[in-house]
């Protein structure tokens, strides 16, 4: 059977960052414990999905997973190891925020199979960090990174964010230079996107308003600065021995994030925890995103009655699901708030707009094997137009973005959507 990947979501953080629109919020220790218990229950319920399948990667993301107490972390990791069949080769990543790790915790994580860390460094400039509402300083990042190395982690990613308020090419270059000097295996360099519903969104719009009244504000870099920063990133990372393998990901040879590539290649993944998304076969799922609801569904001790009711309510709705071939819904309990059956056309769209994010691009052969039709039969006209515009190219049986295509990816991606 095909490999499968696991994503485990920890929706907690010390303090919500100003730009963050992920499912995450501060919570007390008791809620965290209840959540971990529920999460383990969900893993058990959904263990069938991965039965007999090799787990190629596990990714614990957040929030800030390292905010969990050592006891909770241990419980969670042991459960993952017990329930799923991890191998020597499984890439096992955990996100961490500078300042939230201790030697004890890192040792515990390593002992329980985690072999890759991803630090949300974002910037190495304290002013910028403050603007983002991050809780750590550049010195914290150095410190935590050093600690991880001392604990034996050999595969570390640093997240670096560009297009920050008031950022210039110069300040960004300094920040990136510091990150490079730390010599991580992988750098994720992406630009800030102002998402609706975040504190930044409101602040930014206030700024626009103020600016229209002639007041001085901290502005976000415009498209030209953003462009310059992208070019700078490619150049600096290239010179330092990191190659780009995806729109915003750079790695040393052989250190590409397997889990990340799996998303773009549309490998199956099982999402566990609050709001987690899954792709199993031809179906995408998304878990419910209300924490107390999630806990009450899974936490037997806390709410037996409620669970019984839910079980009864769901047993009817999920009778047909109970025999679902992939087993993702064999449990009586459904935590999905959204379930999308993908049509062949959806899958073609995804294959293109996700696959093209990778430098390697979309394999003509793989497309044909999967859909039984040539990619050029489906997308010939669009491919011709995009090629003419210099946004994509074809080499050795792969369609991929040109340099300009990488800068203007959205124009390419949206082109592959059907009407």
């Amino acid at each position, binding site marked *: 059977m095909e490999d499968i990947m696991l994503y485990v979501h920890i929706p907690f953080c010390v303090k919500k960052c100003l730009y963050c629109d992920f499912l995450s919020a501060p919570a007390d220790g008791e809620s965290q414990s209840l959540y971990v218990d529920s999460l383990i229950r969900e893993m058990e319920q959904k263990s069938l999905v991965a039965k007999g399948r090799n787990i190629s990667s596990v990714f614990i993301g957040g929030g800030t997973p390292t905010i969990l107490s050592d006891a909770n972390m241990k419980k969670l990791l042991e459960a993952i190891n017990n329930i799923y069949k991890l191998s020597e080769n499984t890439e096992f990543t955990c996100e961490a925020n500078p300042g939230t790790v201790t030697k004890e915790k890192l040792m515990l994580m390593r002992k329980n199979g985690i072999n890759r860390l991803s630090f949300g460094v974002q910037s190495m400039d304290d002013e910028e960090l403050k603007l983002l509402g991050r809780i750590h300083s550049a010195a914290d990042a150095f410190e935590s990174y050093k600690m991880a190395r001392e604990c034996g982690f050999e595969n570390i990613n640093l997240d670096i964010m560009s297009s920050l308020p008031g950022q210039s090419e110069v300040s960004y270059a300094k920040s990136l230079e510091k990150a490079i000097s730390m010599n991580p295996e992988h750098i994720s360099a992406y630009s800030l996107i102002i998402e609706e519903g975040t504190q930044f969104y409101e602040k930014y719009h206030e700024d626009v308003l103020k600016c229209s009244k002639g007041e001085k504000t901290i502005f976000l870099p415009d498209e030209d600065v953003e*462009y310059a920063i992208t070019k700078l990133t490619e150049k600096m990372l290239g010179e330092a021995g990191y190659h780009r393998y995806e*729109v915003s990901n750079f790695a040393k040879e052989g250190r590409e994030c397997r889990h990340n590539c799996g998303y773009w290649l549309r490998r199956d993944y099982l999402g566990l925890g609050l709001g987690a998304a899954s792709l199993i076969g031809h179906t995408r799922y998304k878990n419910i995103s209300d924490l107390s609801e999630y806990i009450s569904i899974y936490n037997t001790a806390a709410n037996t009655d409620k669970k019984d009711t839910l079980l009864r309510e769901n047993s009817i709705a999920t009778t047909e699901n109970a025999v679902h071939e992939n087993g993702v819904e064999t449990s009586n309990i459904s935590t999905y708030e959204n379930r999308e059956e993908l049509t062949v056309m959806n899958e073609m769209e995804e294959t293109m707009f996700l696959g093209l994010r990778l430098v390697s691009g979309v394999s003509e052969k793989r497309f044909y094997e999967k859909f039984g039709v040539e990619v050029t039969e489906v997308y010939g006209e669009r491919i011709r137009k995009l090629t003419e*515009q210099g946004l994509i190219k074809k080499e050795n049986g792969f369609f991929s973005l040109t340099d300009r295509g990488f800068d*203007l990816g*959205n*124009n390419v991606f*949206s082109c592959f959507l059907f009407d």
Partner: protein
Amino acid sequence: MSIDQSRIRNFCIIAHIDHGKSTLADRIIEKTGTLTDREMQSQVLDNMDLERERGITIKSQAVRIIYKSKAGEEYIFNLIDTPGHVDFNYEVSRSLAACDGAILVVDAAQGVEAQTLGNVYLALDHDLDVMPVINKVDLPSAMPDEVEKEIEDVIGIDASDAPRISAKTGLNIDDVLEQIVTKIPAPTGDKTAPLQALIFDALYDSYKGVIVFIRVKEGTIKPGMQIKMMATGATEEVIEVGYFGAGQFIPCDELPAGMVGYFTASIKEVRKTQVGDTVTDVANPCAEPLPGYKKVNPMVYCGVYPADSAKYGDLRDALEKLQINDAALQFEPETSLALGFGFRCGFLGLLHLEIIQERLEREFGLDLVTTAPGVVYHVHKTDGTMMELTNPSNLPDPSEIDFMEEPVVAAEIMVTSDYVGAIMTLCQERRGVYKSMEYIEETRALIKYDMPLNEIIYDFFDALKSRSRGYASFDYELKGYVKSELVKLDILINREQVDALSFIVFKGSAYERGRRMCERLKEEIPRHLFEIPIQAAVGGKIIARETVRAMRKDVLAKCYGGDISRKKKLLEKQKEGKKRMRQVGSVEIPQEAFMSVLKLDEE
């Protein structure tokens, strides 16, 4: 029930905008108990949402109320509310023809304004008795004595016993009601004479068909009667007659001479009902029609297009429906290379345009794109003929043009003395020709200018308000046409001319206009994969240029936790956004860009 003509009072309320006309109407209706408290809502007669929101009256409305006088006699009041804005003067004049008298409301703090004068003159033209009322005496800034004197000095009517009221608080409304009885004459007319009734409005009701609003001058109209519209010649059988309750139609047996009310007939074709026409009895016709109204001609034209080209038919239906009771609205089909099929519509002014546009969008759920408004130019050709140009695209080749004329209005601006300088500067900037200035009182002046209409149709009103901090008021009327140096300004986007963006402009302003237009379009047109020159040209000569630079960076950053659905939604949104744009050559132009030129003069 027989109606005693001497107990009928047909009147309207006229006022400058914001002087409290609709509020006074509310109080009168409230005091006479026509509506229960539950039914009472602010601005009863402004029943369009748009009217309530903007606090203005757009359409005339009528209501019948019963008033018991202090002497214990019962009177029928037919109150007709009228619009205050200069753009809707024609509506006012229609309503006035149905009345015998008018209540003039003057704000105790603001005094006599340009439109106060305009409306009084209109009322006097219709031989109405004008009864002044001083409103808002509860305001701290109220100066009722000064205002009383002003009414007498400026307007020349006796205001010594004008009720001093507050329509807001209800103060002295009883005095107003009593004066309606004593000061406004009862209607005249013989109810046994041949029917002669004036159509002053009409509306379309999906159940009843066309509802015709009439003032019966002579004779009586009742159901079953065969009637004839004298101008269109249409004959119909009357199905129902009635009067206006507040917000509803109340049927009755007959409407005798002197009454205001409505009738319905099996009128299929709305065009057969023309406001201003005279209705008479087929069996016993009157000798001649009533004078009717002065025909109103649109002064401002613009292209109106459905944002979704499939809605062309819906737009036509909607315009036809609006035209039933808005004779001033004119439209004819036109096509644009950039915008497809639409209509060239004529309006009385920019407010009228805005109102119609909003009504089309709200009442008919249409999404519209409008082009820059223009006026009617007279193009005198070398062959001696003259064409009326309403669409810049139709301008003949310069070699065929002898000369052109543009409409000029006589503008009257009332302003406090502090802002006289600023307002005069504004008028000069807009090519105004100074006529006169007189001080109505020590601190307020009436300035008169002759101004080209095309200089005031964009945003003159806004500029006036901002430069006078809201203290200036403005009225105008068409004076005639004068010879002018005019040119057609074309806009080229990526070297292709966009017809919907062309407009006629005074030669001396062409450069400035062209430059601003390019600047504005540069902001509106998103970056494309290639560089897009935006040029303004007069007669093939480029006079201004801006460039929309090529797109450099547009890519979604990383995707979190495998939430692909969300990523796809973002891409779909981007794609959808492109679909809503108008394709001109290889450039996608957002619909807003076509309208942004309306706001060209914002500083």
